[in-house]
């Protein structure tokens, strides 16, 4: 494959089977998906379509039952828990619908946390966390706790946390699901910026309007990809 070098995610013949009682439940069936570096992909589907399972697999939170997963030129199928943790730390940033910030820490501390686990020295951590917070447009209120921030602000903090360790991929699971439309728009603009900077963004959503902001839309049903369409050229500026 000539494009192999450009593909940051290659999933081939992926099965993810859950043993539920007698019958095995196929959350993903013989799935094949390649995602190019710098792409902006929306994965759509109803609940139960397997899109969350797919996202957990891409995010190295889960392992496929069968198949091959090449992430950033590394075969991650046989890696242990700690190695996967290390890959999540260095290669992937997560943004969740419910923000998932640690309530006992300030915004600033939350953003620094991935760097703590990466073993970055304290001074560096502060600089990089500040930089990331500026990138998401949150220069103020960074020493407040999550419960003192608005939903939009919290989601900005969580995006800052996701990008602070300069990941290749940003995985966002319904990132605007808990936000009003105005704030949602701001967050989506932020994603556009990140794509411009060369980060591969993978967005899981059931909202067509949100999906339309992406360059490529992948639709799923019953654990299989039913359609895969490119609606915009990949932004090459940042790569």
């Amino acid at each position, binding site marked *: 494959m000539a494009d192999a070098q450009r593909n940051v995610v290659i999933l081939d013949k992926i099965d993810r089977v859950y043993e539920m009682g007698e019958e095995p439940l196929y959350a993903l069936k013989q799935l094949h998906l390649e995602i190019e570096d710098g792409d902006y992909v929306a994965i759509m589907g109803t609940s139960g379509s397997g899109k969350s399972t797919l996202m957990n697999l891409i995010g190295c939170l*889960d392992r496929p039952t069968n198949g091959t997963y090449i992430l950033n030129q590394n075969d991650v199928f046989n890696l242990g828990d700690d190695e996967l943790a290390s890959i*999540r730390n260095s290669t992937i940033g*997560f943004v969740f619908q419910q923000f998932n910030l640690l309530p*006992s*820490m300030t915004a600033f501390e939350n953003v620094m946390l991935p760097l703590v*686990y*990466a073993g970055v020295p304290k001074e560096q951590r502060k600089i990089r966390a500040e930089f990331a917070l500026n990138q998401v447009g949150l220069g103020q209120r960074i020493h407040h706790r999550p419960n003192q921030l608005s939903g939009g602000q919290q989601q900005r903090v969580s995006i800052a946390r996701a990008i602070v*360790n300069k990941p290749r991929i940003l995985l966002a699971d319904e990132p605007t699901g808990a936000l009003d439309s105005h704030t949602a728009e701001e967050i989506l603009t932020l994603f556009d910026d990140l794509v411009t900077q060369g980060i591969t963004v993978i967005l899981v959503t059931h909202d067509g309007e949100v999906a339309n902001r992406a360059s490529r839309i992948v639709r799923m049903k019953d654990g299989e990809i039913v359609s895969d369409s490119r609606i915009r050229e990949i932004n090459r500026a940042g790569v």
Partner: protein
Amino acid sequence: MGLRELIQIAWQGILSNKLRSGLTVLGIVIGIASVITLMGIGEGAKKEAEKQVQSLGVNLIYIRPGAASNASISQGQGTAPTLTYEDAKAVKETCPSVGEVAAQYQSSYQVQHGEYNTSTTVLGTEPAYCEVRNFHPARGRFFTIDDMKEATRVCTIGDTVREDLFPDEQPIGKSILVRGELFQVIGVMEKKGANQMTDMDDQIFIPLTTGYSTLFGLNTVTGQAVKMILAQAKDGEDLQAQFQITNLLRLRHGIKNPDQDDFQIRTQMDIMQTAQSITGVFSLLLGATAGISLLVGGIGIMNIMLVSVSERTREIGIRKAIGAKFADILWQFVFEAVILSVAGGLLGIALGMIGADSIGRFAQWTCIVTPFSIGLAFAVSLGIGLFFGIYPARKAALLDPIVALRTD
């Protein structure tokens, strides 16, 4: 991840639920405080016993007549008149490792002065008695070698006897009657109190020679019998002295088989060891009692840590999603447990010392907190944190991040 980092993360976890952390610590505080205090009481008892044994005199060796054996039936120690005044003199003259020697013979008599009378122990001994027993007259004097030679009828009385016979007059120079024999009081002993069996203050001291000629009488077969010879070993020569005395007495008594010794030798060391073994058991019991409360405290920590892990499942999921490894989560929770238990340990040590001090002050009981018990308490609290923290921490570290993230 560095140690400081881990401690910081753990510390944040502790601060995020202060009330619960405080209550968890309380169990350890109480456990450690009771260990410190009870061990202090035990240590105090030990010191008290040592002090009492020490007060009997310094480097003392007790020589008593051995149990008389009549067709293999022991008649009890001190029943055979096998030890004599001559033996005592020989010990003093022959044994180079022995300093002062005081032989003694005592018996109970009715004693009278004017309208007052009492029953007390009359102890015939030698002038060296004061030195070996570390027991001296408070007023007047003890009898001298001259009194011994001339068998004068003088006596020095114990404080209790003084109270009984001379409730409101100065005793020195007065006479008392002991079984019809007249003795002049030449001194009053200092107050010493009771040790083990005898009340040291309820005694009258007379020259041994006077005793033989007036009260005790002479045993025609064995000569002047004594009930005990107190020998004071020279400093650091206890063992030599014991050896020399044993050999001398065997020689004098014609004993070839050590099994047939007709005397018994006990050193102060023996008595000390007996006392220590008794107080040792006492300390152990107290320590075990405190240990149980510490165990309960430890289980409290484990319990709270388990609750904490299940309450913070989502936090664990988030941490794992952003790159925390097994060891990162494990150590975070182990450190939380250790910090809690060590903090409890330090507070407990402080509280225990205050407790020991107040017991010493208000209950008039010597209570000694040793560096050893402090060190032990600290080590134990650290160990408890580790031991009871590992299981919950492992449970946390093994959580599946997907499941953890899905939990509310």
